[in-house]
């Protein structure tokens, strides 16, 4: 199935969870904010929520400093 990841189409396995996707992308769960279809997903949802075909995902990776 296809999702939109940060504005670009991406092929992913059907039923993929957010935490599986983050693992594939080698991103640290604690340092990212994920927005799915215009709402920011709480961390508890990463394991639970399976992505659907056509989902619009924004992943923002934060680095330290401020």
């Amino acid at each position: 199935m296809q999702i939109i990841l940060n504005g670009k189409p991406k092929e992913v396995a059907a039923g993929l969870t957010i935490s599986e996707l983050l693992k594939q992308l080698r991103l640290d769960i604690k340092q990212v904010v994920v927005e799915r279809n215009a709402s920011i997903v709480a961390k508890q949802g990463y394991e639970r929520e399976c992505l659907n075909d056509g989902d619009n995902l924004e992943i923002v990776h934060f680095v330290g400093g401020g």
Partner: protein
Amino acid sequence: MWIKINEREYELATGSTLDQLRQKVKPEADLLIVNGFPASPDAALQEGDRVVLIQRGEIPVEDELDALLTARHTPGVHEKVRSACVGIAGVGGLGSAVAVALTRIGIGQLIIADFDIVEPSNLNRQQFFLDQIGLPKVYALRDTLARINPHVHVTACHLKLTPGNLAELFTPVQVLVEAFDKADQKVMLIEEFASRFPEKPIVAGSGMAGYGPSNTIGTERCGSQLFVCGDGTTAAEPGTGLMAPRVGIAAHHQANAVLRLLLGLEPSNGAIETACKLS
């Protein structure tokens, strides 16, 4: 003839001198400025002159400061800024500079929160002073902001923000500024605030360490309510420390993003793609 005194229109008899004006309007004034330069009391005034009458050491009352800001910013802009409430989570390098910028433009209310105290090493970039070392940052900053504009209402909270307390604290804000240091804390704040207030914009910072080129720092919209200012990648690490210039650039991106949001404008221009790129 018409002149302007302290940004307000004033009608005056033709041929009046500066001293005559002073006697009428503000006899206690001891510094007289005409069109940007100190002038002598016997100077003759002319149509359209901009006069500023100052009594050294006197703090302008709220009405006077308001008139100055209205004249500078236009009434429509000033009204929106003056009635706004903004939250700032963390008042280190980013948060202290955002607070100063928003206070200078006459923001109505700021809610600032931080558990930290001022340390000597903070002074390379944060808006604190040597004589404030050891004070809680929020109280030191509140004092500094009051010296810029005492009519800005500042709520200073000396505490550690947690998922349990941040929603209640920031309930009144229209926009939240994320100005934490650690990446996982930034994420915690954004997720928690977004879950409680899914309609309110968050202006975050990511990637402003070191002394890389200024123009790699941008303002990016990342989804429906999140805006990220920074280069998105340059973390604070040994050898790549946080320094006033780039932290200041990112902080003022944040302050301008807040201002644009308050005015109903889109903060990002879409031209710079930085923060949302996955490294």
